[in-house]
């Protein structure tokens, strides 16, 4: 399954370069040297030990949300509630890490899974509505994102606020639930490794198991799935639960690995980055690893561009936007055609 999709992936890589080129033109017009700017972007995201670690740390949650989105889109569901699921995952992981007392390794595992469970539960509602009544998942997901974010705000501000903290955040979780660093002098925790393994496992599930097979059939051609006696509604529900679990893990990895508490509005939009990552990777879980690296580089590197030659933060958003829109165009195109096809397939 790699060879054919590799070609697709190269289309995406080409698209990224076109995006960078357009970004360069914008930089040039606004009076910056694009080469210097991109040099700084690369240097501050991949230039030294410290910045690489920072990039990898940003990459971790994007891998999880990217996988969540890829799984959704594979089934031709346009659910974009990963940001909300990330927050709910964080909430659950925090509660498991703060309220329960357990021995170290077990506590970590339980807290991690709790985060996944949170995301899964957040997907259960829209998944059930979609499967049972055919309610449009996109609209619901956007609304649920805000519910999740404000719910987390409430918990951070009123339920567990740490009065001694210098930033607005909750209490710290118990040390037994904290994900340790890979080695003591690397500020990179085990959740990165976990994310990479999860990507490989997700690929295995999609391409080698009955569940994955049925998800792909439903995603490409729901009518043929029905004729083949595949229970389409059940596949939809499974997809929601699986994807929700993955998105929830993004939240728990951030809480247990990086913050050890829930800071107010801690996600810079990793849930949304996941959607972009999945689009660039054309929903291939293995390629999500690469596309999430690109997103992480843009996130961490643009700070260097800002400090280095004083590109304004607004312009940086423009550059990021241009690159990402270009990069996700091939994936978005095929997703939209598939979505329309499945929509027609359901109707006829």
């Amino acid at each position, binding site marked *: 399954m790699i060879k054919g999709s590799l070609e697709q992936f190269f289309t995406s890589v080409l698209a990224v370069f076109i995006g960078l080129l357009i970004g360069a033109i914008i930089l040039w017009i606004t009076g910056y040297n694009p080469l210097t700017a991109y040099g700084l972007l690369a240097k501050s995201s991949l230039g030294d030990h410290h910045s690489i670690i920072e990039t990898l740390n940003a990459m971790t949650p994007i891998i999880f949300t990217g996988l969540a989105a890829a799984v959704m889109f594979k089934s031709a569901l346009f659910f974009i509630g990963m940001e909300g699921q990330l927050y709910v995952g964080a909430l659950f992981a925090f509660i498991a890490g703060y309220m329960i007392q357990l021995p170290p390794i077990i506590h970590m595992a339980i807290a991690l899974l709790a985060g996944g469970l949170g995301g899964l539960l957040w997907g259960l509602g829209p998944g059930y509505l979609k499967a049972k009544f055919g309610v449009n998942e996109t609209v619901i997901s956007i609304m649920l994102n805000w519910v999740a974010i404000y719910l987390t705000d409430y918990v951070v501000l009123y339920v567990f606020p740490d009065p001694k903290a210098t930033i607005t955040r909750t209490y710290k979780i118990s040390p037994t639930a904290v994900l340790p660093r890979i080695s003591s002098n690397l500020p990179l925790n085990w959740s990165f490794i976990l994310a990479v393994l999860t990507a490989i496992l997700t690929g295995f599930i999609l391409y080698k198991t009955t569940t994955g097979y049925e998800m792909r059939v439903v995603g*490409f051609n729901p009518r*043929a799935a029905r004729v083949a006696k595949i229970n389409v509604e059940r596949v939809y529900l499974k997809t929601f639960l699986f994807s929700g679990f993955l998105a929830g893990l993004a939240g728990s990895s951030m809480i247990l690995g990086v913050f050890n508490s829930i800071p107010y509005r801690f996600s810079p939009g990793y849930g949304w980055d996941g959607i972009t990552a999945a689009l660039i990777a054309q929903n291939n879980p293995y390629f999500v690893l690469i596309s999430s690296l690109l997103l992480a580089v843009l996130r961490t590197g643009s700070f260097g561009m800002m400090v280095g030659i004083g590109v304004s933060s607004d312009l940086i958003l423009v550059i990021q936007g241009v690159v990402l829109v270009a990069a996700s165009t091939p994936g978005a195109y095929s997703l939209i055609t598939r979505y329309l096809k499945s929509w027609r397939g359901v109707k006829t």
Partner: protein
Amino acid sequence: MEMVNIHKVYPDGTIALRGVDLEIYEGEILGLLGENGAGKTTLMKILSGLLKPTKGVIKIHGDIVEFKSPKDALRYGIGMVHQHFTLIPNLTVLENIVLGYEPKVKGLFIDMSKAVEKLKKLMELTGFKLDPYVQVSSLPVGFKQMVEILKTLYKDVKLLILDEPTSSLTPIEVKQFFNALRKLKEHGVTVVFITHKIKEVLEITDRIVVLRKGRVEGVVKTIEANPPLLAKMMIKLESKPLLKTKHAPGSDILIVEDLWVRGDDNRYAVKGVSFKVREGEIYGIIGVEGSGQKELVEAIVGLRPYERGRIIIDSKDKLLAYIPPDRTIEGLVLEMRVYENSELGIHRFFTSKASIIDMKRVIEHCKKLIEEYSIIVPDIKAQTRFLSGGNQQKLVVARELSKGSKLIIAVNPTRGLDIEATNSVRRLLLELRENNKAVLLVTSDIDEALEVCDRVGVIFEGKLIGEELAEALTEEKLGLLMGGVTIS
């Protein structure tokens, strides 16, 4: 005007035209005669720029031209009136006619008086009498047809293509319509008249081209033609009949009793259908498309709930071999690999305990199917959309038959296939019959019903009217039954 070696293959693999040469002389009325699906409409859609040929060129006065859209064809004065109305009911006759070609004043306003003038001239020319200010929705069908023709003529068309223009007209209207055509001819307009009605083509045309299965079967001058000759050209049975051995049917495998099924519009599409299919027998259900056969089959295979009646399938195996009417929508996932499609619907049998699919076994299974049914595949790992239509269909048939169930349901299994693939599918059906399987064949192809089936039931407006042994039926009799005329 000339069309040379035109081929057309639709994206779904259906071959509509296989090398058609056609000459159209200025000022003539040319009849394009053929059965449904002979390729008449496709050919003319190519000429009018609506479709692009897969191969072949169009020449006008010896120069090769290429039409990217109907507008390009219009520039050469070629316009087509389609079989289905393309009018906007809420607009007036005049508004419909000028639509898209409004005479503009300063690029902003429409000069309707100019349009009326031109329309009046056209009406004089054709003898059509219409009130330009009346709403199209209030017109009877015959008048709508006139509006369609005026609309095309309004664009200064010199070659007018008419696709089955008389299908909705009464006999008197047809007379009037033919008079208009003669007047147009006097004024130098060339007309291509698409029809399957022999009588009409003899009455109005100068020359007749007969199409059959995407090829030109013959060209005759109308004065030299007669009905039996044209009929023979239209529906010649060219393949020798398949060998059908005598075979005594066994016990009932599928029993359908007083079945009532609702269609998508919630009205009854199947109204009390009863029939039986026995082992060692091919039972055909034939009918004009939309007679309820789709809903009937969907109820039997469990894709559609039924309201009343019973369906009894005597089969131990839970799997049902079902060859759906549209392989690309219902039978295959074109974006997935050939071997992945070879397990669709039976994929659960290739899994281990942990629901991991044993790819080795799937590939083995797929290779076996490919060999057994001689399916031509570029690569077993290729996406299925790269297979030709015939091979896609073979893949579906092979997979469904590999289920080994006692009952096989096939819906239009040879639609869009070339003659060779058609014959191989039909031969397979007969083989199944010899192996004592029960086959339900739903088709809209009269040849197929007569050639393959043992018994045929005709479905008309959701009811089975007439059930006969295939030997007792003739094409003519079947045609009448399909049109709802019961023979007493």
